[in-house]
Structure formats: C-alpha cells, structure tokens
C-alpha cells in the first residue's frame, strides 16, 4: 500500500476522499469474510459460495439448464442481485410481472 501511495497521487475529490479514508477514518463498510457474520452471503445457507459457482475442478460442472429455470429461485432470495431482480428489497413483485420466465420474459421491467 505504501509503495503504491508513493507513486500514485489523488487528482480529484473522490480519489482524495478514498485516500483520506485509507489514512484512518472509521470503517463504514467491511468485507463479510472478516466476521461476524464471517462468511460471504452467497448461495447456500452456510453463506458460502454455492452449487452454481461450483468451485470443483472436475465433474460435476455447469450451472442450471436452462438458466431461466433458476431465475425466480435466484431473484426472490436476492442471490444474484446484479443479474436478476432483487426480490427482497427493490423488486418484491417480480413474480407478478413475470411469473413464468420462459413464457413472460418480455414483460420483465427492472433496472
């Protein structure tokens, strides 16, 4: 970190804010791994990365087939909030808009 700081210089307000934070401001966010809860909130109830991320180097490999069949399972519980609607907070009614993804995917409206 100190090596990087020696050669990098903050040029704008945001960069200076980040630098200030790094120099001793109270943490406002932290990685979940640092605990508690101590594990990343992922796909399984042990809040580890789950079935679909599949860390194994060998069989079984692959995600759900077709991925649309896993859409509502992931949307409702907010497992992949960057990829599918977040059913816990921002899109609790996603099931009304698109109850059957294979049939209704054209009706999906979310950011």
């Amino acid at each position, binding site marked *: 970190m100190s090596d990087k700081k020696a050669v990098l210089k903050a040029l704008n307000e945001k960069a200076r804010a980040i630098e200030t934070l790094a120099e001793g401001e109270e943490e406002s966010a932290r990685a979940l791994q640092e605990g508690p809860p101590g594990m990343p909130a992922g796909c399984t109830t*042990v809040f580890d990365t789950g*079935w679909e991320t599949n860390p194994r180097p060998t069989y079984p490999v*692959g995600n*759900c087939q*077709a991925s649309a069949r896993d859409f509502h399972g992931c949307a*409702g519980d907010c497992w992949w909030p960057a990829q599918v609607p977040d059913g816990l907070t921002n899109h609790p009614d996603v099931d009304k808009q698109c109850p059957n993804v294979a049939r209704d995917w054209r009706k999906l409206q979310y950011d």
Partner: protein
Amino acid sequence: MRRTSLIGVVTALAVGLVSFQASAKDLFYYIGNGVIQVIDGDTDDIVADIPAEGWLRESALSPDKRYLYVTARRHLIHKVDLKANKVVQTLDVSGGGWDRFIYGFDVAPDGKTAYASIRARTTEGGEVVVKPPRLSQLDLATGKVLRTLELPWDAATLTTVRDGRMVYVIGKDLYKIDVSDDQMRLVETYPMYEKQMNFLPFWNYAWENGGVFMANYYTPELMGLLAIDKKTGEIRDTPLNGIPVFAYSVIYSPDKKKAYGVMDELNVIDLETKTYESITVNHQGTCYGINVSSDGSKVYVGGGGSTVTVFDARTLRPLKVLQMATDGMDLRRVTF
C-alpha cells in the same frame, strides 16, 4: 355367537383397512409464483389452482393434514385450507418499521404454533441496521411472537424434533435448541463447517419421508445425505461413494432403500451400497423439487422452471410432462 361376533369384527376391520389403503390418495402441491397448483396423483392432471400472493418458499403441514402453511416473499405465511383449496389466512412477520425475512419454518406438533428463523433489518439515521437471526415461536392464529432466541448469524433452515421439545436449526453448523422450557436454549452444536459440509437445505420432505428431514450436502470430495429423525432427534450422516452428482433436493423411496435426487438429472442412490445407481437426464432442464408417489411407483420432479415431469420409478422413463402456470419452488405430496 360371541366367536361369530369376534370374527365379524375382525373381518370388518380387515375390510376397512383394505378399503382405507385402496382409498389412500396422493395429491401433489406445486409451490409456484402467486399460485399453488394441485396435481391428482392418480391421473397426474392439474385439478385445482390456489391463488397465494407472492413468490412462495417453505411449506409445512398441520398435523391433521387440513392446512398447508406456505411462506411467501420471505415475510408472509399463508394458511391454505386443503379441503377448500383456498388461502384462509395470511400472516406478515414484518412491521413496526422492521423488514423481517423467514429463512426456516416448521409447524410445531401441536399445530397451534410454528417456529421460524427470522432475520430483521431496518434503517436508522440513514444507516442499515441488521439484527442477528432469531428463532421465533409464532402463534399461528394471531401471528403473535410468543418467544424468541438469538441465533448464530448463519442460522437458516429448521425443523422441529422430538415431539416439539427441540428445534434443529441448520446453518454453517447444526444448532440444537431446547424449546421444552419457558426459555429456549442452544444446548448443542453439531459440527458441519469444520467437516467442509456445504448445505442448501431449502427442500426437505419430512412428512413424505415418514418423519425424516433429509438434505444433501457437498464437501470438496463427495456428496452426502444428512438425515434427522424428527421423532428421536438422531442425526445420520451418509457420505456417498463415487463422483458426486448435482442435486438441489433429495427424497427417500418409500422403503428407504433408495434415495432420489434432482437438479439437471434425476439421480437414483442405492442406500445399501451408498453409491449412485443411475443418472437420468431430465430433458425439461433443472428442477428444484422432487417427490415420490406413496406407493413408490412414480417420481415427480419440478419447480425451477414451469414443468413437472412424472417418471416411472422402475424404468425411469418420463410418463408425462405437465406445463404449470408459473415457475416454481417445490413440489409436496400429501396423502389423504
């Protein structure tokens, strides 16, 4: 005369038993989005739709099989009258400025209360406040929280055991909660995380399995089955031999000599040899839920996508593919 009467009574009882067995009927409940669809196990036709608000998740059956409780959007609890095929009550655990999310739910053996593991969040001064999960006992008639116990952060799925004297909660480890006294207490932790056991136990078929909660887990090397006898509280771990298959959910055959698992394939597991007997591709794609007819002749897979495939349990050939109204989460069997 007395002997004749005795024979008559025995005969009548025997006939009654035969007629009871003959009249046992399977109904399958497809847990969908905004709807529960009922499948007749004799004809494998959809015979009823039960509107139920929200994306649906856990389900638990009342002891008299009259009501199915189904959680929705992680904060609603629908009470479904299985005679009327209708939601007759909906409880909401959110309120008072708090969002609450149910990640484990089971009806107590008394049928009057339920246990839920609930996470809560709110905002204070623009900051998100998240509370550790709590085990809550709920009055099913009023929704009133009768008592709570703070749980470890990872606690989620749960099941009642030992006639309701204990609740087992699954997270990184399995937490045994004594609920027999006024004050609920964590009395034992069954280690799983240190054994590298990774669970997604959202599907369990305790009443279809004759009172055994079962979920599959993975380690970096293998798939195993963790079974909890709800009557005794005994935990049985069955690591399986061979390269693991992918499965979201698993269920016993009625004779418990086999288990079936499903994700992209229908997997048959020989429980005597603890090996995978067969792997059959489900051409409809990934399924979350699995179930078995009460006579063991048919296997049903469905949810995830909007299909239910009925397999012949002996030949593993698909007998029928049902197109459901919505995508779904699970498939439960109630035998009347």
